[in-house]
C-alpha cells in the first residue's frame, strides 16, 4: 500500500490545503527577497541583476484579477522599499505592473505560456524602471527633496542602461520563478474544484 504523506496532506482538508498553499506562496516571496542582494555569475549585466520581485508579481497576476495583482504589487513594493530605500517608492511601479499584467488579454495574442511570460516581464521591467526614473525626475523638478542630486540628463542616461539590462536579465530568468509557481497554483486550483 502506497502511503505518500505529501499526497495525504493535499487530500486531507480544504483548510490544511489552503494553509499549505499560503505557506508555499510566502516562501517563494521570501526566496525572491533573499535572491535580490545575491549576484551569481550569469546573474549580472553591467552590475545589474534581475528584478526578482517584478518577475514574481508578473507570475502572480498573469492568471488573476486586477485587484489581486494590485495587492501583490503593493505588498512586494513595500518589501522592496524595506530592502533599499523608501524614496522614491517601488510601490507605484509594482502596483502598475500587477494591474497591467492582470488586465492583459494574453490568450488572445500569444499561445505559448513560457514565451509570453518572458515577453511580459521584458515590457514590465522597462515600464517599472521608467516609473522610478519619472519619480526621480519629479523629485528633481520639485526641488524640495534633499536627495534630488541627480540632474535630469544623468537620470535618463542611467535609465537607458538599467532598463535594458534589467529587462533582458529579468525576462531570461522569469521561467525559473514562473514555471514552478504556476504548476503549483494550477494544481491547487484543480484540487479546489469539487
Amino acid at each position, binding site marked *: 500500500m502506497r502511503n505518500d504523506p505529501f499526497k495525504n496532506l493535499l487530500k486531507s482538508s480544504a483548510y490544511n490545503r489552503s494553509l499549505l498553499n499560503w505557506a508555499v506562496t510566502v516562501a517563494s516571496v521570501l526566496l525572491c527577497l533573499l535572491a535580490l542582494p545575491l549576484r551569481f555569475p550569469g546573474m549580472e549585466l553591467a552590475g545589474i541583476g534581475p528584478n526578482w520581485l517584478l518577475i514574481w508579481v508578473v507570475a502572480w497576476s498573469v492568471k488573476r484579477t486586477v485587484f489581486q495583482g494590485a495587492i501583490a504589487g503593493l505588498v512586494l513594493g513595500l518589501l522592496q522599499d524595506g530592502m*533599499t530605500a523608501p524614496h522614491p517608492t517601488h510601490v507605484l511601479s509594482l502596483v502598475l505592473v500587477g494591474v497591467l499584467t492582470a488586465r492583459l488579454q494574453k490568450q488572445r495574442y500569444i499561445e505559448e505560456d513560457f514565451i509570453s511570460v518572458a515577453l511580459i516581464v521584458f515590457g514590465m521591467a522597462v515600464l517599472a524602471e521608467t516609473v522610478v526614473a519619472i519619480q526621480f525626475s519629479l523629485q528633481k523638478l520639485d526641488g524640495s527633496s534633499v536627495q534630488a542630486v541627480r540632474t535630469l540628463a544623468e537620470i535618463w542616461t542611467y535609465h537607458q542602461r538599467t532598463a535594458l*539590462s534589467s529587462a533582458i536579465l529579468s525576462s531570461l530568468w522569469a521561467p525559473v520563478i514562473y514555471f514552478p509557481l504556476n504548476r503549483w497554483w494550477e494544481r491547487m486550483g484543480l484540487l479546489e474544484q469539487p
Partner: protein
Amino acid sequence: MYTLRRWWDRYGIRMLLVGVTLSTAWVVRETQGAAILEVYQGMTRPFQGAPNPEEQIANARVLELQQRLVELESQNQKLQDLLGYASASSQKGIAAPVIGRSADHWWQQVTLGRGSKDGLQVGHVVAGPGGLVGRITSVTSRTSRVLLISDPTSRVGVVVSRSRYTGYMRGQAANRAVLEFFDKVPDVRRGDVISTSTFSQLFPAGMPVGRVESVNLNKSPAPEAVIELSSPISYLEWVIVYPHQSAAAQSAPANPEVDVP
C-alpha cells in the same frame, strides 16, 4: 445585517489575509528589512570565506610601496610630534565580509555580514583595498547596510592631493564619480590622486578615494573632473570598517544619507 454577514462569510477570510499581508509588508518596510537581512546573513554564512591577505598583497611592488608609506607616515608623525600637533590616534578597524549587493538598480549599496553585535554603528566609515568605499547607513544585530560613495546621493568633500584644490564628489554608479571644484581655475591634471578633505563631515580627512580620469574646465557652473575610484567597488569581498564620530551625527541630521561638505 444579514447581507453584512453574508459578505463576511464570502470575503472575510480573504480580507483578513490581505490585511495581515499588508501589515507584514509595512513592518518590513519600516524596519528596513531587518529580519530578512538577518535570515540572509544566516544563509550565506557557509559561503563567507576567510579574508585572504596574501592574495591582496602578493605583488612585491605593493609591498615596497607600503613599506615606503610606513616610513613616510612615521616621519610625518615625528614631525607632527615636534610641532606639538594633536593628531587623532589611528583606530583599529573591524574586518567585515560583503554578503550582498544592492537590492535595486537605482541605489548603490552593499550589505556587510557584521552588525551591532560586532561593534558596528551607523556613520562608521567603510574602506576597502584601495581606499574609501562608503559609510554605514543602517545596522541590524548581525548585518549592516553601506551606502557606497559611487551612489549619487552620497556626496563627499574631497581634495586634490598634489595641489590642495578642493571640491565635492558625486557618485556616478559603477566605479566612477564626478568632482565639482569650488574654484574657477583649479590646478588639476589627469592621474592626480584624490583624497577626502578636512571639510568632509561624514568622512575622516586624508583617505584615498581615486584618481582623476579626465578634466573638463569649461563646465558651467563649476569645473568638473571625472574620477576613477581606486577601490574595486564592483567586486568587493572584504572591507574594513573604521569607527568615526561624524560632525553631522553629533548634531542630529535630518537626512543621514547626504554628506554636505
